[in-house]
């Protein structure tokens, strides 16, 4: 297994290289010139001024030269400076990633736990009132856009009932406190968790229903095992394999941040950093974020593969 993981990790290097070269190339194919975005309009219209600023940032070099330069620095851990703020790319990512992680990991734990409970009850009490309600919730949860859910919850809990804050990570002007932070987290975590609960619970339900039809479950039932042991010891573990795949592929999303949710709740995470960078043509930040997401996507699928073995002893690494 150790060998397997090492091999997969090594394979990650060429993959990330290809992805970085591709995104570098694609980025420069897209319309909009980073230098023109940096300059006020009357200067952006002046070719001499654009050339001057291009030279300052090395953007007058041929694309392959620029890429190799960027890569040379990136390998050393230097992703350059943001074009339109005084921060380095590493500083920017370094402060935004933890904020996004805080939101997404808590939402993930809450939603996975609730989704498994919901899915198991639905699968074992098929077509009961509970199952029907859970199905209804799932469809609404998947179909309703998160900005709508967010607006609704903010209206009810912040504007009308005034029990929860509508924006920020902490009350502005006060030193960060645990309870204050927790209170500020409730609405964004809920909005983030609802579609996750909705979709994962459907996977758990259908996957568990398939497993419950399997021969070994019938055998277990015939042996006279209690329903609880049968479901939690034998069936659930097997039914989680497809669910793990889904969750593994969700890992990069933990870090990429939820653009809309972070925006509505003024949460200073990665979603905002990347969208701001894309709109302002801040390409060092875009490249840095792409590199991070590419690495994490590959890592996420590796983690999912390793988890298969934990869930299913039949899976062997070779």
């Amino acid at each position, binding site marked *: 297994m150790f060998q397997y993981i090492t091999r997969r990790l090594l394979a990650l290097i060429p993959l990330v290289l290809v992805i970085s070269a591709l995104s570098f190339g694609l980025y420069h194919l897209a*319309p909009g010139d980073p230098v023109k975005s940096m300059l006020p*309009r009357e200067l952006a219209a002046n070719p001499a001024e654009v050339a001057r600023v291009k030279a300052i940032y090395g953007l007058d070099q041929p694309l392959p030269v620029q890429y190799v330069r960027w890569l040379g620095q990136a390998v050393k851990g230097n992703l350059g*400076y943001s074009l339109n703020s005084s921060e380095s790319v590493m500083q920017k990512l370094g402060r935004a990633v933890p904020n996004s992680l805080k939101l997404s990991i808590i939402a993930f734990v809450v939603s996975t736990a609730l989704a498994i409970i919901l899915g198991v009850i639905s699968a074992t009490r098929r077509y009961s009132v509970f199952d029907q309600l859970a199905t209804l919730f799932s469809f609404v949860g998947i179909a309703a856009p998160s900005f709508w859910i967010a607006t609704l919850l903010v209206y009810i809990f912040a*504007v009308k009932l005034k029990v929860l804050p509508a924006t*920020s990570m902490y009350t502005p002007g006060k030193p960060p406190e645990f309870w204050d932070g927790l209170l500020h987290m409730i609405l964004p975590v809920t909005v983030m968790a609802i579609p996750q609960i909705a979709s994962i619970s459907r996977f758990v339900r259908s996957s568990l229903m398939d497993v419950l039809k399997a021969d070994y479950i019938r055998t277990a039932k015939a042996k006279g095992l209690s329903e609880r042991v049968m479901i939690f010891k034998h069936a659930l573990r097997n039914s989680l394999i497809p669910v793990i795949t889904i969750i593994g592929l969700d890992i990069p999303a933990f870090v990429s941040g939820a653009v809309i949710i972070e925006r509505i709740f003024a949460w200073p995470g990665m979603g905002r950093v990347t969208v701001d960078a894309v709109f302002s043509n801040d390409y060092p930040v875009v490249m840095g974020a792409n590199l991070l997401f590419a690495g994490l996507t590959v890592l996420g699928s590796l983690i999912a593969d390793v988890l298969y073995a934990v869930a299913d002893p039949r899976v062997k690494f070779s």
Partner: protein
Amino acid sequence: MQTKRLAIGALAALLGTSLVLSGCSTKSSESTDKGGETAKGPTVGGEFIYTSIGDAKTLIPILTQDTASSFVTNFVYDTLFNYDEKLQPYPALAEKVDIKDDKVYTFTLKKGVKFHDGVELKADDVVFTFTAIAHPKYTGVRFSSFTGIVGWEELGKEYDKIRADLKDKKIDQAAADKAMMDAYNAFLAKGGIKKLDDYTVQFTLKEPFAPFFDSVNSYGIMPKHLLESKVDDLAHAPEATKPIGTGQMKFVSWVKDDTITLERNPDWKYGIAKAPLNINKLLIKTIPDQNSNMVALETGETDYAAITPDNFDHFKNDVKHVNLFEYMAFSYTYMGYETKNPLFSDKDVRRALTMAINRQQIVDTILKGHGKVAATHGTPVRWDFNPSIQPLPYDQAEALKILESKGWKKGADGILEKDGQKFSFKLVTNNGNKLREQAAVIIQQELKKIGIDVKVELMEWNAFLDFVDSDKKEAYILGWSLGTDPDPYEIFHSKGGFQMDHHYTNPKVDELIEKGRKTTKQEERAKIYQEIQKILADDQVYTWLYFGNTIAGVNNRFVGPKTGSPSSVGIFWNFDQWYVNNNKTQ
């Protein structure tokens, strides 16, 4: 959306003057006061939580380009002169200014002004602030704002030559760096910017250039003793994120993308009230979503938000703890034309197009009445505005008559035709700007009524600007944010930087603009600009659409806000007079 912020930022940078977004006027302003009448009077204390759509980018005054950054530097730094709500300058760091022959500006500084680290501000700091813009390693965009100073323009040409040599590999980087430093030192020796003594600074211009006074008062004075050694890379100096100025507030902390905290400077007395602030702390909180901004004001999490026209009634009627202040913004929205295109080359045709569009309907429906139909370049809230110019009337019959007299006849499909060509064009604006998108649709419907076929197209902001700057455009909707100085050289002079946005040239306008730059007396300048405005309106270079209003919502715990001013601080122009009403509990 983000695009909108960029749009505002880019437009506000017009003419390199201070970033200006809002205006004020006693006539057009309205405030709904729901509190403060029982106030006891000012006491020191309290904190004000301001909200901004975007976070600041840098806090070095000569590097800022966006309103979020200059909002902060305005509190931390002081300029030589500042502007009141009527756009009249009053001395801030300067005691007075003597102007000789309209081209030698001698500023006498106040004595005893201290930077937040305790060091006294002197003439050297003023000289440093402006010469740093001429330094070879300066990365900001204000170089061209000061080309009127003796030796400055030549320095720019010298730099260009050295950079070209470097690019052609005639010299290496080290030689280029040395040549540029030599050129820079030679410029300093010419004495265009000169310290006469510790409290006197002199700027000498090549020839009279009235907009200079506004430019020199657009940048906060920076501490030479802290920044001189970092002038090679000001953008990444510690002071870019931890500024030290002389201003009404001292910098405390900056959590990026989240909150900037400023604290009252007890030694400051250079504002309207000539006394330190009453409010103890100012928090500048970034909330990127416009609706969330308003929600946070409504829930009491913050004390300020910009209110959109469609939320005006809700805040006015239902939100008891918020006072609204409405004032005319320092900007206008227009439909621009490619006048090289035969469709739009005739001013009578452009006049007919304007007359065919019900601009009042645009103000009433998309601005919900919170604005006014515009008639020409300029704004009613600046001293140079010509009040006698009225918008062209809305008269579709007359518009059609004009077009028919120019040879346009309705074809079988109801579209106007001339020499086999249909009157059909593409109207472009940037996506994400709801007001402009809606205005485009109204224009499309209006022109259809008289037989003109308009196709509306939305473009991403940067692509849109590139398109507007090209000859390919036909018509477009865009806006201008105006500066404190009315010089329209860049927009309407035949050699201006935005000439390609319309390709309109008029020797008379060129002559007047040049004359306006050389005239320093405000009353005389005003007459010149009024004449320019008249010509531009007669020629309908644009179809002027509307002036929008700014609506500021402020928690009614605070006593003192009046209406906005045209500086980038908007309603905060008299922040030194505000205080917390202690009778209110909120």
